Every structure is written in C-alpha cells, then in structure tokens.
C-alpha cells in the first residue's frame, strides 16, 4: 500500500560524524516553496478536478514518537531529526489522470506533507515527495518532476509510510530527486532510466546530476519475484532531508543488484551495491525479511540487517519492525533500530492513517 524518502540518511554515516567533528553547516538547497504545495493542490483540484473520475485523493495523518536509549528521552521523529521521514505530519497524496476521448494521456502525481520538526528552528516543515507528470505514449512512459530515480530497490519499494529505512534512506540513492525519466514495461519485466539532479529532496543545480538505469525481470505482483540490475553515475549531493551534508557534490558511480521474492506469507528483499564515491569504495548489503500473519496479513513482522562501506569505514544497522493493520485506513507500527553510528537503540512507535476521500 505504501512508500519512502531520500538520500537523506546518508548523513547518518557521513553527516553525523562530520557534524560532530565541527564541519561547518553547508549550504541549503531550495526548499519546496512553502505555499507552492497548497497552490498546486488547489490548482489541480479546481472545480473540474474535484468531480473528475480521474482523481484520486488521499489524506495522510501520522503520529510518530521514539525513545532513544542513548539520549534517554522521547523524540518526535523516527531516526534522525533532519530526515524528512518519519515525523508527526499531515499530508495528502493526489493522483490526477488525464484522458482523451479514447485513451489515457498521462498522470499528475503530487504527494506532500506538513511535518512537525521538533529540532527545527521553525516547527513546521513542508515536505514535497511526488511532484511529477507522467506522459503516456504508445511505446514508453516519460516523467518529469520530483520522482524516484531508476536505481535499486528504492526505486520500486514503496516505503513512504514505513519506519524501516530503505536503501535510499541509508544514503544509497535518492528516494525522490528532481529530473526526468523514462520507463517501459515488457512481458519479462521492464526497463527504466532517469536523469536527475542528484540532490534529493531539494532542487540544487551546481553541476550536480545523477544518471541511472535499471532493468528488471519478473513482475512482483504477478510472478511473486523480481530481480533488478541498476547502474548509476553522477555528481551528487549527500544530504539529509533538505539539509546537505557536504557543501559540494561528489562523484559517485554504482552498480546494484536487487531481488524480491514472495513465497506464501514470507517476503524477502535484498540489495547488493558496489561502487565508488568521492574516490573511496562504496558498498551495501541490505536484506529485509517479512512474515505476514493473521487474517489478511494484518500483522507483519520484519527484520532488516544492513551493512555498508562508505568513506573508508564500515557501518551496520539492525532493525526489526512490527506492523498491525487496525483496518483498511489505520496502521500501527513499532520498530527497534540500532546502528553502528549511534549508541543504544531507538524504540519507535507510529500511528499511520491513510484514507481515500
């Protein structure tokens, strides 16, 4: 049902340590115009949009709280204060389909949140996730805007609502990035390519870019498996949410193999990535295992180990999660997370409400 965020968490490895080391706070990217989200929404949902049969609109509300055993306090964010996800927030998810007389033409997707930023100078943080138009042609789909780059598991894993961090949230790729992309599905799977800014949530243009491509075999929702091979090259910012960790972009080249396999009530997702970043080796091994229990899979147990190498150092993270669907609209989640960058563990609780209106 649901999906995830940016390159943001790169910072958990590089960022946090460098900040502790007195690295000057780097420049900020362009935040989404604070009123643009609302204006865009109302523009799209004018009288025509409200009644059109091509409109999907979802309200999203979430409450998030975490107890840090290291800090010995309760914090109102899931992992890091500068991460965009997850924080207490009110948001929406809009899909507006455009059709001609006899065929679909394209889709506009806008997904945004107004989050409570406990550590921020100002407490309300506007967050823009999806903001793209996807043009449907007879042979391919072409998108432009803020969308997922064609790299790895994060390009297909919908973790927008989830607590467990996807690879992009560990800093390997971007959950969303500004740019353009193209994709085509085939009977055996599909291919996708994107050229994006390489700056994640904010749009920054200082010679930075990310070119990525992914081919996959198997359609998960039909074949119960999917295997993807991705390559990416660019000059990218390492950032946490809207805050870049480094003042300048760095060169990054990566190749990734990802796989998802569903068997009965078990699911497994893995990704292995190798590459170079800023003249240092880059590597990731990621595994998320899930077990669905109770009627309709209402209860889900997950475990997620990940180990990675960046800037000459190895790090790891261990996460376990529990999700219970109270009904079709309300989910409760609990996560225990520990990584090598922080002492102790985080116990995170989330109530997530997502309703079509």
């Amino acid at each position, binding site marked *: 049902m649901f999906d995830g965020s940016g390159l943001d968490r790169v910072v958990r490895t590089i960022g946090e340590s460098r900040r502790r080391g007195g690295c000057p*706070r*780097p*420049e*900020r*990217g362009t935040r989404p115009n*604070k*009123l643009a*989200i*609302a204006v865009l*929404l*109302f523009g799209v*949902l004018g009288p025509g949009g*409200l*009644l059109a*049969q*091509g*409109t*999907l*609109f979802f*309200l999203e509300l979430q409450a998030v709280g975490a107890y840090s055993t290291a800090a010995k306090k309760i914090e109102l964010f899931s992992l890091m204060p500068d991460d965009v996800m997850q924080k207490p927030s*009110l948001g*929406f998810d809009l899909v507006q*389909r455009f*059709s001609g*007389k*006899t*065929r*679909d033409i394209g889709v506009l997707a806008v997904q945004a949140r*107004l989050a409570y930023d406990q550590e*921020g*100078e*100002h*407490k*309300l*943080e506007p967050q823009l996730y999806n903001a793209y138009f996807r043009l449907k042609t007879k042979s391919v789909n072409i998108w432009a805007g803020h969308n997922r780059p064609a790299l790895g598991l994060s390009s297909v894993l919908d973790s927008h609502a989830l607590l467990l961090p996807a690879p992009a949230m560990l800093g390997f790729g971007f959950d969303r990035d500004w740019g353009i992309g193209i994709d085509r*599905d*085939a*009977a055996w799977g*599909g291919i996708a390519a994107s050229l994006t800014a390489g700056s994640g949530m904010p749009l920054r243009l*200082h*010679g930075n*870019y990310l070119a990525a491509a992914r081919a996959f075999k198997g*359609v998960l*929702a*039909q074949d*119960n498996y999917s295997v993807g091979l991705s390559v990416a090259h660019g000059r990218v910012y390492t950032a946490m949410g809207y805050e870049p960790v480094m003042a*300048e*972009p760095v060169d990054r080249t990566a190749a990734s193999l990802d796989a998802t396999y*569903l068997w*009965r*009530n078990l699911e497994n997702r893995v990704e292995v990535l190798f590459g170079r970043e800023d003249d240092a080796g880059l590597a990731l091994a990621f595994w998320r295992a899930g077990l*669905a229990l109770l*009627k*309709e*899979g*209402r209860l889900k147990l997950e475990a997620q180990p990940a180990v990675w190498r960046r800037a000459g150092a190895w790090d790891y993270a261990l996460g376990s999660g529990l999700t219970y669907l109270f*009904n*079709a609209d309300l989910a409760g989640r609990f996560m225990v997370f520990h990584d090598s960058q922080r002492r102790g563990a985080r116990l995170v609780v989330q109530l997530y409400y997502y309703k*079509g*209106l």
Partner: protein
Amino acid sequence: MSQDHRPEPVRPRGPGPKKALLLAAAGLAVFAAAVALYAAVGCDLNDPDRDVKRLFPESTGYKTLYVSIAKRGGEDLLRKIEARLGDAFKGLFETADVPYTMYEIHKGADVIGYIHGTNQKGTYGGLQVFLALDPDGVIRGFYFQKLTSRAAKAFRALAFGEQFRGLSLEDFYRYDVVTGQEDPPGPISRIKNPDPGSEADFRAALRATKKNLILVDEFLLGNAHIKFFKG
C-alpha cells in the same frame, strides 16, 4: 559538469510564523476540500499497456476510470451490492470506500470491452482476480494477477481461466458464495478446482469473480444484469 559551486545564502529553516499559520490554514482547507472529493485506489493492472493488448488484441486504446461505492451511493448501495453478492463485505479489502479501478477498452471510438480486478482474501493474504469482459458483461478472459497459493501454478494455468470464458453475472447469480453451491447446478458447478487441497483459494476466486461482475454491472453496465437477480 559545472565547477560553479557558489554557496547559496543561508535561508531561515522552515517557514516564518505567519507563513506557518498560512500553511496550517491551507492544510485545514485541504482537509475540508478533501471531504468533498472523489477518489479511489484499487486493484490496478501491473502493466496496463501490455495487459490490455493481450486481452484485447484489437484495441487501439483504453481509459482508466476510478469508482467507489461510497461515492456512488454510500451505505445504501453497499447493502444492495452485498445482497446481490449474497454475502457481507468484510475485512480490509471490502469497505464502502474501497476503490475500484476499471479500464474501458476502445477500438477507435467504439468501446469493445472492460477490464476490472478485485481483491479477495486468500489463504496467504490477498489475491487479485481480473476479468476481461465484452460490452455486455460476458467474460472473455480470466486471470489471477496477484496470487499466493499452494496451487498457484494450477490456478494460473490457461485451462483454469478458460472455464470462466462465456460466463456472465446471470450465471453467477445462482452461485452462493457462502455455501459454495450453485442452485440449480449449472456452469459454475462445472468449473473444476484444480487442487482439492486449495478449496479456500478456489472459492475465493469464485467469490472474487462474482463480486467483480456485480461491480462492473453497477458501475459500467447500468445494472443490465439486475433483472436476473432473484434476491
């Protein structure tokens, strides 16, 4: 690649108090506006281009439509649909505001059929049954999109789906989704379960098919088959 890395001036982090208020107001307004909105989600085709061409090779295009019981008639309509199904909607996948994505298939300016998928609880979570229908609501194609079952291979076999070809809601009205019986025995009774050990998934498939046909009849066919409903 540009070497121009001029630092941007540091902007204040987050909106100022006035803008924050404005945003909060906008958020509330969005919420209020949203209450009046029409929306849906649903059981989408994984790859509509490919699936439409496979199910309707003669098609030249398709339109995606979103419908929901809540929007069309609310609880009253839900009760009527439950009566036609012969069972109550229940669980995560069956509520009035659950969402249905329907595909209207075109050949030139003509509508030559529809594709619709429904979710149904199976042994290992949800399964998705898609039907390709002609303009009169007669099944011309049946297949599982999502399916996790011990007998997945057998259910996905062409021979299983072929058994549904030519059937319509008129036939399925005689099938009781609760007892799994057809009265009197007819074409639904002749649909063979390929794996007796997966009776629950077999029945789930039949229930999903009947529900699917009812929803298409309600939303796309102007209740053309309601005359056959003896409820």
